[in-house]
Every structure is written in C-alpha cells, then in structure tokens.
C-alpha cells in the first residue's frame, strides 16, 4: 500500500498554520493537508517547490480550488500561466478551471507539518479552480482539496474520530 497521509492529526481547537512566514488562523476540526502545485508538464517536482496548506474537505464536490492571491503569494504561479480548461460554477460563482498538477505532501507518521519522501501526484481531469482576485468573489480561507480528488485517484481515506487522525493511501 502506498501511504500518502499517515496518521495525520487534526485538532478540535482553533489553531494556526504557518505558511511562508505567515500565521494563518485555522478553525477547529478542519483537516489540514499540505500540497504543492505545478504546471501540467512537470515530470518531477523540484525540491525547491514549497508545500502549502489546504483543507481536505469531503463536502466539496470538486477536486482542488484556490484563491488567485494564494496561488501567487504561496506558489509563485500566475493564473494566466496555467491554461484555461473551461468555466465552472461554485456556489453560483463563475470561475475558470486551469490545467495544473496538485501534489500531496506526505507527512511523517502522526505529524501534520513534517514531510517525508516524494509528494504524490494527483491526476485531476478538470484541473484546478481559481478564484480570481479581480472580482468580488468570496473565496475559501485556505485552498480546498475536495472529494473528487480522492475519488478520481482511487484513494482510500480513513478518518478516525477517536484519536483525530486521518490516513490516506493509494493502492
């Protein structure tokens, strides 16, 4: 079994997640995972690419979505450098889907913010949704990794509410 998230903890209290020197407040209970984003023809993710936090949100029915401001500030990628694949409506707001690869950063067992081994590439047929900065559109506080990413890649997700741990693996 190909472990991606190994007993990754989540908290029932508010907290912070540190991303590139910024402390981002996190509500109680969201499952924070770390991802990297790359242009679509990336063969191997360069070591210099930073992982950024995202919420594993099984209530979200898309694969991956991110605010344009976060994309630029945290990954250095510009939306206009990622080919548009089509439009979509999220909560009745019209956005574009862009071609990009999302990589899930593997955690050290039981630790949320410590990584190990090479990230796992998620193959998302519809690309990623980007909330544009130039329109008054409500965007999520953190990027969202939705159920479709798990489903489409045939991943197995276990959420253990007894010890607040999440595991994710590929077969």
């Amino acid at each position, binding site marked *: 079994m190909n472990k991606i998230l190994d007993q990754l903890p989540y908290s029932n209290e508010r907290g912070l997640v540190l991303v590139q020197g*910024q402390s*981002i*407040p996190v*509500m109680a209970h969201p499952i924070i995972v770390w991802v990297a984003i790359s*242009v*679509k*023809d*990336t*063969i191997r993710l360069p070591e210099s690419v930073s992982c950024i936090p995202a*919420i594993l*949100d099984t*209530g*979200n*029915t*898309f694969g991956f*979505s991110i*605010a*344009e*401001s*976060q994309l*630029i*500030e*945290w990954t250095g990628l510009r939306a206009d450098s990622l*080919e*548009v*694949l*089509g*439009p*979509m*409506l*999220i*909560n*009745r*707001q*019209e*956005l*574009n889907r862009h*071609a990009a*690869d999302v990589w899930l950063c593997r955690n050290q067992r039981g630790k949320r913010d410590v990584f190990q081994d090479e990230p796992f*590439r998620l*193959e998302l*047929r*519809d690309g990623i*949704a980007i909330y*544009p*900065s130039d*329109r008054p559109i*409500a*965007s*999520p*506080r*953190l990027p*969202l990794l*939705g159920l479709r990413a798990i489903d*489409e890649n045939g991943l197995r997700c276990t959420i253990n509410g007894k010890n607040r741990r999440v595991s994710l693996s590929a077969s």
Partner: protein
Amino acid sequence: MDFYLTDEQHRLVETEAGRPIHVIDPATDRTYVFIAQEQFERLRPLLSAGSQASHSPSKLAGAIPHGIRRSQEAYWRDLPELLSLKSPEYRWVAYRGDDRVGFGRTSAELYAQCVHQRGFKKDEIYIDRVEPRVLPPWEAEEIDSPFDHGEVSVPRHSS
C-alpha cells in the same frame, strides 16, 4: 435584431433535427447555443431565474484557448468510442485539434509525450480521462462547496 440563415446553415439546422447547435465567435472564442424559438420559450423561465443568481457573467468565460477548445470538441465527439477502448494502458487520452495523439496510463505520461517529446504547445492539446463525462469539458459544471466564506488571509496581489 434578426439574422437570416444562409443555405449552408439551413442545411445544418435540418441535419441536426432540433438538437442545439454550438456557434463559436472566432474573435472571442465564446460559444453560443442556437435553438428553435419554441425550445427557447420552454427555457425562458429558467434563464430568468438564473439571471437573479449571485454570479455575474465572467469576463474570463470563453477564455479557453482555441487549440484546447478544438481538441476538447474532438475528445467529446470521440468519447463514446473511447469508452469502449478503456483498459489499464488506455486510462487517459490526448488530442491535438482533430487528431488523437495517443493513450496513456497517466496524464503526466501523456503531457511528457506531447510537450517534451513531440514539441506540442500546451495551449493546443487536451488530455482527459477515458471516463464518462456529464457535460462537455468546455461547459460549466455546478459545484457545491459548503466552505466558510471568511476573508482570505493572504494579502491581495496588486498587478
């Protein structure tokens, strides 16, 4: 304002026998759907309801590069046939315009083949799964996301 069909367009309408016809404005790549008056009247209430929704027409809509759009149309056209070919080696398929470039186990493998080996531009190819789709890839799917509409914590980029 009324437009009159050319003979060629009239023949196309007859051939399609009531099915919607996609009309593309080459200047903007925006797609329009041509339907009969009676079909439009049936849809009118839905369109009125839609105009009251919170989203406004995106200035990004229709921004699919022309080459990708052509490739998507070829993929959508061939999808019924592709589904019958699906296998572990044929999980993904790549198109460049009307041409099917090939199949692969992963999209990464196909991107590498198209871009790095064959020198195709990324804005002229389309790679998708050999899986059913509800809508053509260029149309807007509606998604539910029950996220917290809080302020984004990162400063807005000024460009």
